[in-house]
């Protein structure tokens, strides 16, 4: 604990909520923000936040007149825009019938807060700080039986130096509904603490794509919690490329039988970037499958972290949980950490994990060179294939090219410096 360090931000957060009533969820949240996680806490050991306690930061007061800067990347997508962490209905699309976008009242906000507090994310700093400081908790609801054909594009932007932003989104898919959502994080802020709660009711299906591309000085501490009911399907892919420090932490609770979860991701890191994909998957009931494939490419003095916990409860027989992480280091000064954790209390399960960290395989380089392909081109081919492979496996076909092009932009920057 960092009690002895004078922390301006803790004071700023308390000031921010000072005019709310004592029983407000904001007050409750801010009371729980007593310090930043210590590096002695296992899940923060590889991603240290000490520097945040020494920064002069204050929570942003959203400017509702601010214009947006990130334009849509898709024709005909339904856009939902958060600027400075606040929903901007005036800059968002009209949503199709059967879908709604609301801001939660005090009572529902407290319920939402408690759902996070009942999860193992309860001590995540973003939970306490963003519930204290978010302009409002926004809920996207998809009605029963509705299969949304339009792509939903959620763009998060705004912020400024020395300010923190706090978008909070609650997505509920009712029974038998489905949707594809792409979220793009394009902030200019010092600290970004996005919250997301996903609830998939029986037989609901969600494809989620997240692209973390905040500015090069920012810290993004995204905290996500997902609850899956019977036969629901959550397919999530994150591409982390921006920010100085981006950590996306997702906890998924498989609460209903026969549900399926994919939590895949890629991080592309250069210079002194720090990228972290932390996940926890809780198999609480039988007959569910979960899969995690994470790949990273690192150059410069960057650091990559993948921490993945899979917990299989004693009753969760016939669980199939797979986890695989691979990182390619293109620079001698880059570091990749992989920490798979399996906690299995059931006996009839299939669980596998594997992790590799290394340079590009010399055999592969030699094979390509022996065909007349230059070393530089050979490395490009191998890394590109490394990413294309996982993108094609994780992302629905219509979105693959977009994701690959987004990855390629970051990749070419790493490659141009290292190869």
């Amino acid at each position, binding site marked *: 604990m960092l009690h002895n360090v004078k922390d301006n931000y803790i004071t700023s957060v308390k000031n921010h909520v000072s005019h709310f009533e004592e029983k407000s969820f904001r007050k409750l949240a801010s009371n729980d923000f007593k310090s930043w996680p210590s590096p002695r806490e296992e899940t923060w050991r590889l991603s240290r936040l000490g520097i945040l306690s020494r920064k002069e930061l204050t929570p942003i007061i959203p400017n509702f007149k601010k214009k947006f800067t990130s334009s849509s990347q898709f024709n005909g997508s339904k856009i939902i825009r958060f600027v400075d962490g606040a929903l901007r209905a005036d800059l968002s699309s009209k949503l199709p019938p059967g879908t709604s976008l609301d801001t939660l009242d005090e009572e529902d906000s407290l319920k939402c807060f408690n759902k996070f507090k009942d999860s193992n994310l309860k001590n995540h700093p973003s939970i306490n700080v963003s519930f204290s400081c978010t302009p409002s908790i926004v809920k996207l609801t998809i009605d029963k039986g509705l299969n949304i054909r339009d792509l939903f594009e959620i763009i998060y932007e705004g912020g400024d130096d020395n300010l923190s932003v706090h978008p909070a989104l609650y997505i509920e898919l009712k029974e038998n509904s489905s949707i594809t959502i792409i979220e793009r994080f394009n902030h200019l802020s010092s600290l970004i603490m996005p919250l997301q709660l996903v609830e998939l009711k029986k037989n609901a299906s969600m494809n989620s794509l997240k692209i973390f591309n905040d500015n090069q000085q920012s810290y993004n501490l995204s905290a996500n919690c997902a609850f899956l009911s019977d036969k629901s399907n959550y397919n999530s892919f994150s591409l982390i490329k921006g920010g100085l420090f981006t950590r996306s932490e997702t906890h998924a609770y498989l609460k209903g039988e026969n549900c399926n979860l994919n939590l895949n991701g890629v991080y592309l890191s250069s210079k002194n970037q720090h990228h972290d994909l932390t996940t926890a998957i809780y198999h609480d009931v039988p007959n569910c499958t979960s899969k995690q494939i994470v790949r990273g490419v690192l150059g410069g003095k960057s650091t990559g972290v993948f921490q993945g916990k899979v917990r299989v409860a004693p009753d969760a027989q016939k669980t199939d949980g797979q986890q695989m992480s691979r990182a390619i280091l293109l620079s001698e000064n880059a570091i990749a950490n992989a920490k798979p954790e399996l906690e299995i209390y059931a006996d009839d399960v299939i669980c596998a994990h594997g992790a590799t960290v290394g340079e590009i395989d*010399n*055999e*592969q380089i*030699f*094979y*390509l*060179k*022996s*065909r*007349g*392909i*230059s*070393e530089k*081109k*050979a490395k490009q*081919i*191998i890394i*590109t*294939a*490394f990413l*294309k*492979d996982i993108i094609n496996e994780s992302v629905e076909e219509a979105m693959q090219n977009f994701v690959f092009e987004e990855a390629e932009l970051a990749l070419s920057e790493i490659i141009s410096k290292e190869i």
Partner: protein
Amino acid sequence: MPLLEIKNAKLKLDNKDILKGLSLSVNEGEVHAIMGPNGSGKSTLSYMLAGRDGYELESGEVFLEGQSLSEMEADERARSGLFLAFQYPVELPGVGGMSFLREAVNSRRKFIGEEELDHLAFVKEVRKVASKMFVKDEMLKRAVNVGFSGGEKKRFEILQMAMLKPTVSILDETDSGLDVDALKIVSEGVNSQRNEDNAIVVITHYQRLLDYIVPDFVHILSDGRIIKSGGPELALEVEKNGYAGLINAA
């Protein structure tokens, strides 16, 4: 001038002498077979020729069409017309067969001043050659060598050879892992590329490949040197008496 000339090649691996003064001269239109027991230096020879890192000569020299290879990286050697068919072709997950071939062929074409082939022209050309090698379209859509059978891997090697049209091809134990039918197909593929302007060096353990790819010359490699050279009959002698008799006589 020979197409390939190896002069007194000496090479160490892990401080151990592997090639101990190997010389060989291969002319246009010739097929040479290099036979030898395990550990005689056969694979080291092929890697040394192809320019693999760590297989640099300690002394001696190698010339491809009169040009010294010593300062050339593996990719430059390949573009200049040297081809190695791997004993164990390397898997390239995520790299499609067709795009890999095109990248390779265009690297060579660019180097020798020919126009690079566009996608359509290239696909047409590959299909023509591939059908002769019994390489199906479906195989070219898959990732290079991933999940290929032993026979498919070797057929794909020879397809690469046919597409790259090398001046000198080194076939490293191309018969290993092949049944008789696959051996025939691969050998026919190689034979169809024999002509007056190129040369092929077949490195093998067993005589049986030489029933299908009939060499003009056979050399026995033992302990890092060529200890005996002759015609195709030398391979039959190995088959009959084993390497031991020849090595003892030498």
